[in-house]
């Protein structure tokens, strides 16, 4: 099937109708505004299905496409996906190349989807580690969708939280330096007023266009963050699913949302506090 046909198929048909009915029921309760995912388990999926790892990654890309559409239908506003970590460069070169090829294909597909449904696409990470071709395509897509705000998709590529924090810290220091502001000043009460604050660092994060996630889903059965959104997930609900990423479907999303709704009282209290 052609990729556009697959998208149209997901958006329409009786399955889509049933899904919308299910989501309507779910929307009686609170829906997370921002869902983040660590898409783990593509290689294990390939091993389980006795196919090569590259085909596993293809299946993973298809699962991400489904998630984006499901989230749009559910009313989630922000989705952030961990596509490729800086650490992943240590994998086999053919694996890395496959992910780069998938990224290029995804850019083209997302260009088409963004026009269909006013989706803003953002690539977060150290993009200079990508090839010039992918960088240019990604930047063009980001610029062309910058005006959309119905739904925001952030793809974390060449990303680690450590790198993101260091980048934000460096930018904050440079900003204060360039402004000629002293790092420590005095307020009226003669106490030290520290001029680098949490907000200064947060505004320089790669993922600053989206608020902190409400729920962070990791597939593959592992319980760790793997250097993904460590700053932003300080208070968010963590959900680890045993299923591998290519097998993540609508019912797994429903389960994750129900899990979020069960813990919603704490988050609502937290938001009031802040």
């Amino acid at each position, binding site marked *: 099937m052609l990729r556009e046909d697959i998208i149209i198929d997901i958006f329409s048909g009786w399955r889509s109708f049933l899904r919308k009915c299910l989501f309507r029921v779910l929307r009686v309760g609170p829906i997370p505004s921002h869902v983040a995912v660590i898409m783990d388990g593509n290689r294990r999926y390939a091993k389980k299905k006795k*196919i090569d790892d590259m085909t596993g990654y293809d299946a993973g890309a298809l699962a991400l496409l489904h998630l984006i559409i499901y989230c749009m239908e559910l009313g989630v506003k922000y989705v952030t996906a961990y596509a490729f970590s800086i650490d992943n460069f240590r994998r086999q070169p053919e694996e*890395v190349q496959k992910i780069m090829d998938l990224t290029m294909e995804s850019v083209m597909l997302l260009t088409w989807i963004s026009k269909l449904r006013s989706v803003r696409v953002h690539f977060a990470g150290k993009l200079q580690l990508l090839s010039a071709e992918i960088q240019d395509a990604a930047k063009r897509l980001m610029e062309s969708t910058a005006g959309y705000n119905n739904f925001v998709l952030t793809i974390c590529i060449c990303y680690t939280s450590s790198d993101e924090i260091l980048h934000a810290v460096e930018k904050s220091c440079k900003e204060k*330096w360039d402004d000629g502001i002293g790092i420590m000043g005095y307020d009226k009460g003669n106490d030290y007023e520290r001029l680098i604050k949490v907000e200064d660092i947060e505004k320089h994060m790669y993922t600053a266009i989206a608020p902190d996630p409400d729920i962070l889903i990791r597939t593959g059965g592992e319980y*760790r963050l793997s*250097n993904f959104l460590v700053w932003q997930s300080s208070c968010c609900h963590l959900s680890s699913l045993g299923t591998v990423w290519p097998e993540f479907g609508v019912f797994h999303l429903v389960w994750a949302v129900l899990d979020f709704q069960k813990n919603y009282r704490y988050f609502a209290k937290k938001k009031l506090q802040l």
Partner: protein
Amino acid sequence: MPFSLHFSPTPPITAPSPLSKPFFLVPYYHTLHAPKSPLCSSMEHALTHQGKQEAFDRRPEDSQTLPLGLRRDAMPSHVAVIMDGNRRWARLRDLPVRSGYEAGVESLRKIVEICCKWGIKVLSVFAFSSDNWFRPKVEVEFLMSLFERGMQEDTGIFFRENIRISVIGDLTKLPKALQELMVNLEEATKNNTRFQLIVAVSYSGHYDVVQACQRLALKAKCGLIEPSDINVSLMEQELETNCTEFPHPDLLIRTSGEFRISNFMLWQLAYTELFFAQSLWPDFGEAEFLKALLAFQQRQRRYGV
């Protein structure tokens, strides 16, 4: 090749990736572009200090007290704990909240003893978060007095058992007497080598990174470094966990069944294995701790490879 959204007829089966190999044994295919992962410093650190394990002042009986099933070579060097559930524990028993906190302190003492026995080098505990200042004043004052009392009562034990105490967090918000006690205890135990207990009081992961950033900015202002020099190593030197040889927890345990990190040690938890225990903190004992360690030892830590 177009975006392949279907499987090809008979795909070849390739050799499995070296998932179980530590990162340093996997050849660097993209050394030109890939910057060093923050993991590298902690892994290298762990490797160089592996040989120094024996240098830790262990009692002879420690080497024989590891429960069946636990492997000494796979013990975490640094365990972090979010001690959640004290108030719920008290409410379930129709006791005042302070009883829950006191039971929590007892539970902590037991876990410290177990860590010393089983050869865990560092235990970090999230005693009081920056957000906890929002709790009722009476509760906060009780907690401050509990910390003071606990540290005074256990000073003898720290010296006898050769335990080093470190306190991390924004201590300026604490009562003066407690601040002095903590600083003095840190100083007095700094040469103890058997075990290190890091107590996070008035702490948050955001606070830790921001204070490190401020220190780095001050160094840049004084011309000691350029903003562009800021890297993982410089950052870690300024974080509050620079008080320990093992700043990155291998395992984080959170009790009471809540699945969140609550702003604890964010930078340091990048590759930490998370374990969420259902029991409340005062009920978290040896059996639960063993379960967490056994689960940790079964995990495959790939560090992105």
